[in-house]
């Protein structure tokens, strides 16, 4: 007997781990993520993430660009919900400039941000379903992501990297077709959302694959700087929209869904419910907009809001303002601000330091993905390889936001 025990201990000592490169370009990682996994059979012992494959030095570039040219950098961060990034950046600059935004523009921003949140969650949740082996839900859900992109297209002309709006409002009033498409979306999407949910939420295979997969406790999540749906799945009801309302979110009624275990299933359910809340917010915004004059689409801030092209060619003042804005002759107060919005994945923050020059002295993006992705090794330790894939997709790490 004693001999046998000795034998097993030597076996443990001699145990060899295998190393597996998960990524950087693997279809299951949905982006450029490399993880060097140490595996004991199919169990993950350790993971070392390598990031920075699509680092594009946005913070450096932002220090050399006039304020109005930085918007295009922000929508290349979380490209699944670029309008939130755009609006967040505009609001940060408006806070620095002390610009008062008309209610109608604020509600329009709320609509477009909630649409972006829905499209972000559509991607995340349908990808969770794909990674757990259910492809059909994904195909149906992506039709509605397409519809959201069509709405973006009506509003600003672009689909993915939107560069939507300007500092002070929107570049043009929304066309009638945009409102019609929003109505169509509100009418058709809830049906699809329910159908998608009914495919998965009580599905035995799906529940077995996701419950207790990649869990994180509320305390660890807070310590790791989690925000957004991933934090709420762990049971902390922190939502920037409710805690530090921006763009008149205080005018809206919505609930913040929270989970309990912080596992993949909870993250899925929280995102599902958030989509419903977003739909409700959009409906409320549409009702509120009916009472407001429908010609206002920007604040009256000629100092920072680029005038329409036809005025530039025909009016002296517009030409002067156009020239001043483009050449960066607009006075900007000295100061520093931190502005946070609730992005698709969590608190998207802009720390903007201005020295009064034409470009920011420093612009730091608080990118939620970058901050919570460091918890990934801890979350998948002891899990199976296939669970690691599901955990990654349920965290909804977007490579562009991770690497800036």
């Amino acid at each position, binding site marked *: 007997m004693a001999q046998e025990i000795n034998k097993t201990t030597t076996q443990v000592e001699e145990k060899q781990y295998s190393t597996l490169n998960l990524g950087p370009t693997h279809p299951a990682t949905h982006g450029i993520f490399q993880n060097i996994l140490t595996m004991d059979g199919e169990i993950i012992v350790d993971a070392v993430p390598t*990031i*920075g494959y699509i*680092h594009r*030095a946005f*913070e*450096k*570039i932002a*220090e*050399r*660009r*006039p304020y109005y040219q930085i918007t295009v950098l922000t929508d290349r961060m979380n490209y699944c919900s670029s309008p939130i990034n755009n609006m967040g950046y505009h609001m940060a600059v408006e*806070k*620095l400039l002390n610009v008062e935004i008309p209610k109608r523009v604020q509600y329009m921003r709320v609509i477009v941000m909630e649409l972006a949140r829905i499209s972000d969650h559509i991607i995340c949740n349908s990808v969770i379903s794909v990674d757990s082996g259910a492809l059909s839900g994904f195909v149906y859900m992506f039709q509605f992501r397409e519809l959201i992109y069509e709405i973006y297209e009506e509003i600003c002309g672009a689909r993915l990297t939107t560069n939507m709006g300007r500092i002070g409002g929107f570049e043009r009033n929304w066309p009638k077709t945009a409102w019609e498409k929003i109505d169509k979306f509100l009418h058709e999407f809830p049906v699809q959302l329910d159908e998608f949910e009914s495919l998965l939420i009580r599905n035995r295979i799906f529940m077995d694959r996701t419950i207790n997969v990649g869990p994180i406790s509320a305390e*660890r999540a*807070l*310590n*790791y*700087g989690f925000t957004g749906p991933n934090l709420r799945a762990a049971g*902390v009801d*922190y939502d920037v929209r409710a*805690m*530090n309302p921006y763009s008149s979110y205080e005018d809206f009624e919505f609930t913040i869904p929270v989970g309990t275990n912080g596992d993949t299933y909870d993250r899925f359910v929280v995102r599902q419910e958030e989509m419903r809340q977003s739909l409700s917010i959009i409906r409320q915004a549409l009702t509120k907009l009916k009472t407001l004059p429908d010609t206002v689409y920007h604040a009256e801030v000629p100092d920072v809001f680029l005038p329409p092209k036809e005025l530039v060619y025909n009016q002296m003042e517009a030409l002067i303002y156009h020239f001043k804005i483009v050449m*960066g002759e607009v006075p900007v107060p000295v*100061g*520093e*601000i*931190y502005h*946070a919005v609730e992005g698709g994945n969590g*608190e998207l*923050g802009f*720390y903007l*330091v201005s020295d009064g*020059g*034409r*470009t920011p002295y*420093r612009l*730091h993006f*608080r990118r939620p993905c*970058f*901050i919570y*992705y*460091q*918890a990934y090794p801890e979350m998948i330790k002891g899990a199976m390889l296939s669970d690691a894939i599901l955990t990654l997709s349920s965290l909804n790490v977007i490579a562009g936001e991770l*690497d*800036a």
Partner: protein
Amino acid sequence: METKATIEQVMDRLVARFGSEIRSSEMCYDMMTIEVPAHTIIAVLQELHDDTATPFRFLTSLCGMHYPHLAKDKQFGVVYHMHCLTSNLRLRIKIYLHADKLEVDTASALFATANWMERETFDFYGIRFKGHPNLIRILNMEDMVPFPMRKDFPLEDQRREDKADEMFGR
């Protein structure tokens, strides 16, 4: 109904604990901004973290700064954004570092999230965090020599002659 904690109360407690170590404090737009010496930063963070009335348990962000135009002992900075989720208070803490001694204690023992934020700050500014478990570059390649977010690191290719600086920003 209990009264809401204010940032002034937090400041009073900090001043009572650290006295003149709090070098400056001002409201910058909507956020209280304080400056502390680099060697006390961990003590300040710990005090805020352990405070029972307003626990600042959430490190929102941490980033580096470079001020080449200032005196040598103030050329680099690290900015911490803290958030107390229970009373919804935010606080910005700044430290300044001497250009020849870019070293500060790590906050990663207190906040797991500081790990990558500090690696990012090291990567871009060359600020070393003492006691950090794995202080290597994170977004740039490991054999890179310069620290690209420093103001003296050029953004454009320096061999280009068609782009004059005064026409394109700073």
